[in-house]
């Protein structure tokens, strides 16, 4: 039995022996499991963008693109298997789309010298590139999100939220706990009062939390949710008639999947975003022309233009731009994994570049450096309009409050450095 399987595995494994001729990227996606319904649009966007480059431009800098998709089901072990299975093929960068898997891969990619790009998730303190040499989490991380969320509240309150009551409804996991520290620091600074409301996975049942919100009437509710927790929370908020415009979710709580089940009453719900959340950009015409209509779309092809699709696409765009940068630096089109890291480290996203890509204003302009792998933490606020069935960005992209965040980052990355006997350096 076992022997037979083994041989079959060998067969399957051999079927995927390294081909270094092209630029290889990995898509550690999850289309199944508890979070599958959010993983699908992201994966589709990520894959479609590369397909677009391939179909329209014949790849990046003349090199054709190969993307290996690997299903992780948001499961760390599968993630490791995917990494080990694909790294042999000269994959230039990984985007695991799971905080858990990110923590798996950080030591591995460090040892193997491969770039790891975690956009809006993962280990926040990886922003400190002097310690996490080949881990990148631009353009924004959770602590930026928390900070900008508070900034938004400051803006709509004329700069003063002293004595306001703010509740954080969070997924009771590593991911959900991320913003707590930042919010506590900020509450010291701005004098608001923070209530923590954990919701255990999966978050199907949140009556207790929302009854408490109804009783204590916090002025604002922030949410760090994921999966089914989001629609349930928004539904409950609607049920208790909580003013939706005072309810702000992180970017992982701001997709159509989350608001649609609650119907019309969800209008006004806000969510943070570090990229555009609708589909009126020139690139989508190309997307339609070269990918969807050509029948080359990943998945069902029905997700184009949704928030998570855009995020996947944005992620792919940043990765491919990093590859271009790497090609420019290396002076050759067929770049190595080491070149790719340099590319990430020197990446500059200017408005011109974005415009040229048909993505004018899709995301903030920012630049990466060795000291700063996290970009400028530019985050905007989007609001849901159930009538029109679309999200609208209602604020400018604004930077997070580094005076609060930087110390936290130094602390955490310092701890990591000490634990692993690393010395910060940029050479």
């Amino acid at each position: 039995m076992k022997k037979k399987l083994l041989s079959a595995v060998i067969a399957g494994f051999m079927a995927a022996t390294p081909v270094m001729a092209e630029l290889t990227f990995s898509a550690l996606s999850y289309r199944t499991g508890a979070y599958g319904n959010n993983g699908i649009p992201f994966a589709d966007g990520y894959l479609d963008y590369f397909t677009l480059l391939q179909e329209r431009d014949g790849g990046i800098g003349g090199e054709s693109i190969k993307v290996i998709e690997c299903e992780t089901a948001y499961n760390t072990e599968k993630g490791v298997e995917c990494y080990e299975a694909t790294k042999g093929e000269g994959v230039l960068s990984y985007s695991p789309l799971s905080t858990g898997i990110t923590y798996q891969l950080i030591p591995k990619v460090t040892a193997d010298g491969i770039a790891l790009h975690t956009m809006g998730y993962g280990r926040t303190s990886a922003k400190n590139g002097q310690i996490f040499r080949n881990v990148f989490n631009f353009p924004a991380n959770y602590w930026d999100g928390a900070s900008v969320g508070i900034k938004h509240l400051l803006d709509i309150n004329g700069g003063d939220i002293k004595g306001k009551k703010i509740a954080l409804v969070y997924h009771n996991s590593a991911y959900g706990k991320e913003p707590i520290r930042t919010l506590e620091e900020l509450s010291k600074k701005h004098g608001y009062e923070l209530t923590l409301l954990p919701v255990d996975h999966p978050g199907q049942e949140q009556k207790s939390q929302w009854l408490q919100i109804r009783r204590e009437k916090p002025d604002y509710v922030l949410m760090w949710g994921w999966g089914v927790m989001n629609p349930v929370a928004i539904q409950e908020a609607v049920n208790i008639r909580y003013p939706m415009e005072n309810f702000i979710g992180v970017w992982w709580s701001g997709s159509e999947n989350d608001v649609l089940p609650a119907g019309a009453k969800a209008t006004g719900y806000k969510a943070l975003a570090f990229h555009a959340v609708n589909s009126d950009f020139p690139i989508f015409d190309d997307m339609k022309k070269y990918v969807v209509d050509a029948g080359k779309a990943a998945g069902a092809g029905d997700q184009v233009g949704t928030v998570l699709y855009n995020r996947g696409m944005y992620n792919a765009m940043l990765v491919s731009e990093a590859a271009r940068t790497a090609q420019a630096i290396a002076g050759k089109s067929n770049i190595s994994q080491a070149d790719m890291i340099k590319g990430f480290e020197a990446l500059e996203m200017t408005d011109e570049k974005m415009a040229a890509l048909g993505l004018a204003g899709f995301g903030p302009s920012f630049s990466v450096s060795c000291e700063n792998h996290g970009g400028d933490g530019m985050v905007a606020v989007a609001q849901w309009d159930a009538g029109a069935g679309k999200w609208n960005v209602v604020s400018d992209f604004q930077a997070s409050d580094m005076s609060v965040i930087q110390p936290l980052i130094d602390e955490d990355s310092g701890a990591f450095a000490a634990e692993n006997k690393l010395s910060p350096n940029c050479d």
Partner: protein
Amino acid sequence: MPDQLVYAMEVFLNGLMAGVLYALVALGFVLIYKASGIFNYAQGVMALFAAMTLVGVMEGQVPFSHLINAILGTKVHHFGWHLPALIGIVSTVVIMVVLAWLVQRIIFKHLVGQEPIILFMATIGLAYFMEGFGDMMWGSEIKKLDVGLPQGINLWIDETTYNIFDYGFFIDNLDIFATIIAAILVGGLVIFSQYTKEGRAMRAVADDHQAALSVGVSLNFIWIMVWSVAGFVALVAGIMWGTKSGVQFSLSLIALKALPVLMLGGFTSIPGAIVGGLIIGVGEKLFEFTVGPLIGGATENWFAYVLALLVLVFRPQGLFGEKIIERV
């Protein structure tokens, strides 16, 4: 009256409501267990599957479209029709009956007379299979389920309680509705089992397989029937939870909410399931309300189990089972 007490009352009421939903899921377990001694772990997945099927039928999804497209390279997704809820529900019931037949025919026909634990494990296997099968058939995207159930705060209760305590209680219309449905469902089951031939046969089987056989009751038929009824209960539960949270993977986890209910109420007693459900619902909500803040909240996942565990340690037969006398 002190606020905390008023709040506690509100929490209590909502606990009752939540308990009804738990009981609804537990009901499916009890039915099958009574009639066939099978502890059906797949009940939760059945609820998910039923809800998926309902949405799929109503929205005119093409079953297995992913698979078909992958193999044939086609791009089929929708039939392009939208059916009214009633038709959807009816056709889903039919599908659940077919499912019941298949389950009995393919699996449990071959496991008659096995120890309970083997049957239990078999249903875990069934649960896994149906999880994959359901996703394969309808896709794993989240689906909005709307069969026109009312949802949101009940204003009447809000006002009346406000006039009494000058604090308006929050009761979700959906929960009230669920309670009514559950009541009707239980009433229906009682009538069915008391006054119909099949029902009496079912009770006979529950009491004693051999005896039932000897008076010419077809076990096979009864079991298929029971699985069908359980499938129907699953559909109802699926609709309730699906309306709350949309139809998606996590629906299957509601089975985990029902297990402690069963341990409390005993696996064989329908009233037990209901009372057990209410106790768990109220217990976990009140615990979260009182003790939760002190120990950091999110206690609901384990409270029910620990409570059930403690009860069992002192009453191994559960709250409603009768004492077990060991003999050699």
